[in-house]
């Protein structure tokens, strides 16, 4: 197997006394798409939120275990540094309504007070929007607010915003669940393109999406990692009965 970039060891997560993740050990191969598949409420979102230290922002939330980015414990790094290296896109598109499209793309720099030269910023905006397959659609409206964009365009703007930080890993938390089928198809296409430069971890409860876009699949059920492997193998010869039942639609 190719090099691993991110790894969790015995990762458990809690909200108060309620345990939502049970000792998950999992490695993510570099420049591949790994789908985290499972029914609603199985802890998928909590899991990826532990990977960029967003989980700890919730009152009463805590975690145990280790997460390593290229061998370094992310819980010994600054959370802000971790979040710049491991970007995230959310379920609902959430561009900043107070900023222009241009500023949205470089929002990470603006918020963090990181100065960019005008030429640098211009190049970064164009590059990120191109990578997010949005450049052609918005290049004439860069200095307008992004609120008039469609849901799918807004989501790609959020992807561009995350890419502008030049992350090593991109976490996508059900990025198409609020979108129509056409926008969903565009995002799925985009994911294929993006994995050349960035490792992608995709949370989804959509079995078809996992099979279409991912190289590896981890099946989570009730906070437990049931099965992990190459997507083709997991989908054709699941080793665990629960995986099989989920894939054929017995629950979820």
């Amino acid at each position: 197997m190719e090099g691993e970039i991110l790894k969790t060891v015995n990762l458990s997560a809690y909200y108060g006394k309620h345990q939502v993740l049970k000792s998950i050990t999992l490695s993510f191969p570099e420049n591949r798409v790994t789908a985290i598949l499972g029914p609603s409420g199985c802890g998928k979102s909590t899991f990826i939120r532990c990977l960029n230290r967003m989980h700890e922002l919730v009152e009463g939330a805590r975690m145990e275990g280790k997460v390593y980015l290229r061998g370094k414990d992310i819980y010994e790094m600054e959370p802000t540094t971790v979040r710049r290296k491991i970007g995230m896109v959310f379920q609902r598109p959430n561009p900043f309504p107070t900023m222009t499209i241009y500023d949205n793309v470089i929002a990470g720099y603006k918020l963090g007070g990181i100065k960019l030269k005008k030429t640098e910023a211009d190049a970064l905006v164009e590059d990120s929007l191109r990578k997010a397959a949005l450049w052609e659609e918005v290049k004439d409206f860069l200095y307008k607010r992004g609120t008039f964009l469609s849901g799918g365009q807004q989501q790609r703007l959020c992807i561009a915003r995350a890419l502008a930080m030049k992350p090593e890993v991109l976490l996508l938390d059900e990025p198409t669940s609020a979108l129509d089928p056409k926008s969903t198809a565009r995002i799925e296409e985009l994911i294929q393109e993006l994995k050349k430069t960035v490792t992608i971890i995709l949370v989804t409860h959509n079995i078809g999406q996992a099979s279409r876009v991912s190289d590896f699949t981890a099946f989570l059920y009730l906070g437990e990692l049931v099965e992990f492997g190459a997507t083709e193998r997991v989908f054709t010869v699941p080793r665990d009965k629960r995986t099989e039942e989920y894939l054929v639609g017995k629950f979820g």
Partner: protein
Amino acid sequence: MKKRGAFNFSLLVAALAVGTVLIAAALSMTIASLPALRAFGLKFFFSPDWDPVSNKFGALPFLLGTLITSFLALFLSLPFSLSISILSGEYLKGKKISSLLKTLVDLIAAVPSVIYGFWGLEVLVPLVRKLEISLGVAPYGVGIFTASLILAVMIIPNAAALAREVIELVPSNLKEAAYALGATRTETLLKVTLPYARGGIMAGILLSLGRALGETMAVTMVIGNSNTIPKSLFSPANTMASVIANEFTEATGDLYYSSLIAIGLTLFVVTAIFGVVGRYVVNRMKIK
């Protein structure tokens, strides 16, 4: 059906009554202030002389008194009202202590203004006098500065309550987006939360200003009631509201009486202008 018609009719009557009262008040004030406005013309607003003995009336000292005390009060209260609203709307959001803080701030608004006036006389005036002595200015104790201090306390709840509400309503997914980009809590507050809430914050500020412009009792008790243009922040002065409250009972001549009503009309117009302009600004700042 018929019952419903009667109900709707009574709603309409109530709605019309509100408008009628407002228009009637404005009209009767305009009519009653005509003698003064005819006698002095525009000079009424620009003349610094208010001299009942020689029947000369100019409202400039009071216009200035109102504007200076109100804006100074706004300036003094903003750091407090903004801090309170950020604290309870963001940092303590959803916690018990936040609702306790909210109740306390609302209580500030519930205290009758005459009590603030008394408190000002008993507590603030001696303190300001000490300050004036140490600064080497005439130690009146009462004056613009004291009135502004009292006003500042009184208007905190207006801005704080509204600002807290809009800060609380900032969608959490926007804040999460900022955190996910590596922003700290402070950066998120300053560059995401507050810009998003700015329309409501502005509305709260204007509400405070409106309250300060019209506040009468407390100001009358501590401003020193001097009808001259204030020379410094510590000068005794009068606002439009306080001069009316002070001199209404002794306004013997017709022109004197009419001049006071003209001041009332001016106050009415000034508050209305701030209200309308404010609403326009707030609408422009709203996030669509």
